[in-house]
């Protein structure tokens, strides 16, 4: 499903973030990526979402190399991915509702269906009733959860989460992890980068440890 073949990533600054990664994820698998800060966890996820391109090697999705994807096909591909950013990248001039609805609007979904889906997503991340709030009025953890809701609302087939529980208290973090697990059970392939060893161990999923390259 997701396959890394001898992937290296060197940033234009000269920083080598990943070196010779070989990794295969089955369809419907859920894995954790751990490693020290700067080990390249975010970079690995960005390569899958085509937010970065590998300097060497290739990333295959469903057996097809991402480098073969034309420029016009990238948006369509990204829409099947739910990306939870380490920094949630919310739009600060729009309400929580509009932020979460964004992927649905991009897909051209109708009003009533949009409302229903956004409500369901809000419910999953425990933010019911906060639709009209603006991101600036939210705590870091709440912003993070809006980001999670936005990633899940379009029911993506691949979920990539970069430190999704970094700002959450243990209980909420656990809830969010279960939400990911639920999506996984429905068939989504899930990759989660996390520092939280305790939480990762409790989930009992495959864990990949990245070493920092020097």
């Amino acid at each position, binding site marked *: 499903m997701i396959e890394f073949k001898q992937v290296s990533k060197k940033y234009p600054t000269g920083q080598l973030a990943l070196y010779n990664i070989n990794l295969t994820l089955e369809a419907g698998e859920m894995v954790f990526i751990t490693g020290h800060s700067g080990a390249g966890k975010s970079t690995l996820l960005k390569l899958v979402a085509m937010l970065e391109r590998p300097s060497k090697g290739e990333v295959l999705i*469903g057996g097809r190399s991402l480098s073969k994807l034309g420029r016009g096909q990238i*948006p369509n*591909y990204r829409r099947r991915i739910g990306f939870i950013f380490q920094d949630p990248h919310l*739009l600060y001039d729009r309400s929580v509702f509009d932020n979460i609805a964004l992927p649905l609007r*991009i897909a051209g979904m*109708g009003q009533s269906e949009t409302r229903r889906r956004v409500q369901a997503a809000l419910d999953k991340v425990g933010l019911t009733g906060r639709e009209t709030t603006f991101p600036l009025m939210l705590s870091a953890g709440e912003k993070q959860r809006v980001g999670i809701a936005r990633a899940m609302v*379009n*029911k993506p087939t691949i979920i990539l989460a970069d430190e999704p529980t970094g700002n959450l208290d243990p209980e909420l973090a656990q809830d969010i992890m279960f939400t990911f697990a639920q999506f996984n059970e429905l*068939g989504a392939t899930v990759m989660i980068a996390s520092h939280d060893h305790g939480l990762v161990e409790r989930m009992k999923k495959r864990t990949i440890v990245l070493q920092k390259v020097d």
Partner: protein
Amino acid sequence: MANPSNKKTAPKRNAASTTNPLSVWWNQQASAIKFSMERLWFNPVSTWITLAAIAIALSLPTSLHLLLKNMQTLTADKREVPTITLFLKQSVAEQQAKDRAELLSEMPEIDNVRVVTREEALADFRKITGFAQTLETLDENPLPHVLILTPRLSLLGDLEMDVEGLSKKLKAFPEVDDVQIDVEWVQRLRGILRIAERIVLVVSILLGLTVLLVVGNTIRLDIENRKEEIRVTQLIGATNAYIRRPFIYNGIWLGLFGGVLSLVIVHVALLFLVEPVTKLANLYGSTFILSGIDVFMTLKILLASSLLGIIGSWLAVGRYLWQSDDAIKD
């Protein structure tokens, strides 16, 4: 499963792929329309400044065009239609003159012919004081029969008339003694109006470009303010078309409302002119009425301004997307 090349293998979880494309299209348009309207509404100062700039730029060529149109109708006033006067030879009898008039009126270049017999002419002369006594001393009427021709020549008509040719043709008739033509001034005026038309065209093009630049620059600034938003939407799968859409609508609104505002400006200016123009026309005994903007012209102006808005915003967004495409490539 999420094989980018093969949609069939993807599970039917993505609702967008199961809804019908027409409603997808409509939903996307509707949200872009709503969003672009809101942008205009919530930035009233910059919106009004832009609209005013567009309106002023558009009202200048519109008023010049109106001025020209009015001058054309003024000179095409029926009473002012120029004439050709044929003086017949003394030997020509009244019946002969009338027959010739009949024949002349059949010519395609001639609209109508009026016969002024020498008796009528003399009677007219008598009315003019000072001449009466002079005429008494003559024992014979010295005046010839005269034919007054109205050529088919109007300033608005595109029929190019060869006055020289016509004059030669008329002179060749045996009854005709002399031809006096009073149409050159019309042709000169027509030439001047034609130059004026060109000037209006050039001014229209230049000010149209101004509108294009104003819209383009406004949209460019708007994009600049929303870079982060555009980037985020791109990260979650927005197509270039999706990103472009609200800006294009924004351009349409600026063009359209700018056009409406320019029409308001021109109408107010016309109202301001109607009274003195009517007064002046009365002094000249003319029934001239200042003509305004008709429905057809209104539609033309609004269509043109909306189009300029679309093109302006298209260029601005296109430039941005082109640059950001390059940025993603490395």
